[in-house]
């Protein structure tokens, strides 16, 4: 689960439009996700992503160095979004 929160509430609509399930799935294509869900919390300017299968069976069964997947959160912040020229 990764929550992406806009610094400014004004930027939330843009994030909501650009940071889609497809974009996030593609960014993590190497993780063999079985599915991605997105929950919107407009009052907090946040998008909650649930990356199913990211831990390969759960924290207790994962072979990853970071079995909890905590480092994935800041990893996602490095994503580059293509913004429309008007922004």
């Amino acid at each position: 689960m990764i929550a992406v929160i806009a610094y400014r509430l004004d930027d939330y609509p843009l994030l909501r439009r650009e940071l889609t399930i497809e974009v996030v799935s593609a960014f993590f294509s190497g993780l063999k996700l079985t599915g991605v869900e997105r929950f919107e919390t407009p009052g907090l300017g946040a998008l909650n992503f649930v990356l199913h299968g990211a831990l390969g069976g759960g924290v207790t069964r994962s072979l990853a160095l970071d079995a909890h997947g905590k480092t994935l959160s800041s990893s996602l912040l490095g994503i580059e979004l293509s913004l429309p020229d008007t922004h």
Partner: protein
Amino acid sequence: MSDRYKIVRIGAGAGFSGDRIEPAVELMAKAHLDYLVFECLAERTIALAHQSRRQNSEAGYDPLLLARMRAVLPGCMHRGVRIVSNMGAANPLAAAHRIADVAREFGLQGLRIAAVTGDDVLSAVLREDPELLGRPGRVTGLGPERIVSANAYLGAPPIVEALEMGAQVVITGRVADPSLFLAPLVHEFGWREDDWTMLGRGALVGHLLECAGQLTGGYFADPGVKDVPDLARLGFPFAEVAADGSATFTKVEGSGGRLDLRTVKEQLLYELGDPSAYLTPDVCADFSRTVLCDLGPNRVRASAAGGSARPANLKVSVGYLDGYVGEGQISYAGLQAADRGRLALEIVRERLRLTGIEAQELRCELIGVDSVRLGAGAARGREASEVRARIAARTVTLEAAQRVGAEVETLYTNGPAGGGGAARSATAIVAIASTLIPRSMVTPQVEMVIA
């Protein structure tokens, strides 16, 4: 009868099993708390604790239980601060007796310590053989001889009962994290078991406090972007909770860290799937319309959370033995370090094939390049000047697991140039699977131990 203007002050003494001890001492001494809660039980920890108890019937509680109690128990008792914790892990009763020993060390004879048990549902789970959550099959499909433990996530009621019996310390096994914080609020304000709105608000208090320092700038700092002062002296948070369930979150004046709208937002959304339906044993909490208000430096008020009926069943964590993991790592530095790292991985992969080592799953990565975001490749065309090649494999036997690390080590004299600092390990896996059990099959119990 609850006073409409009553405020309950509840602090977070620890956010996980290995957390720092000093911040809890600071809270005890300076925050004028009514309750101090230590959350120290992660998913796998209780399965490991049960394994430990199998070796020794007096063991199975958190390794830092005594150190934490020695640090805060006398001060808490002299100030009338009650302690609640899940450090009982696999043996809450033994933990209660150890706490009684500590109490007597400090001249606190007569101290009332309640042990909450009933979370151990191993025989019920083996008998009922429910379906697993999130994966196909039933519990016995894991292999009954491999199952180590089964613990239900209890809710607030047994802790409330313990407090009503006059316990000054309540020590539990597996309880839902928010319930550790909700129970004192239920006890103080008299909220009913079906007052979903209040329980939802109490669950929010618990969810915000359960990771301790994460609310005050821990797991938040990003130097130059999101600065947090004095992380080495991070102050843990506490809440001032009102009878309507609204709460102001803050920390001890002068302690390190920062508590503001951003840190609170991050913790609110932490590990949350659907914010409008956060399931706990006590309530299906709704955090989606929470209102956060900045009240000044390091003071944030949260209100307007809600809730609906609690789930019919309780979630159970089933601990089972699941083979072994063998691992090896070796570093490369300088020009073409990543290329040499990749060559090392290829060699080990082929060696495992040649020597007939079967891995149920194999993971090959370069730490510094793609060990977090597997398959990421070089960052913006620049390869790292230092990498650490890592291979991890899940195997059926310990011997096969040990071979993995051994093959990495042989790269010293048989692999790419400049390989150094090889390390290896092979460990038995205690895995956790989840299932559900009807509430009717779980009977929490409270036993009082007097120091």
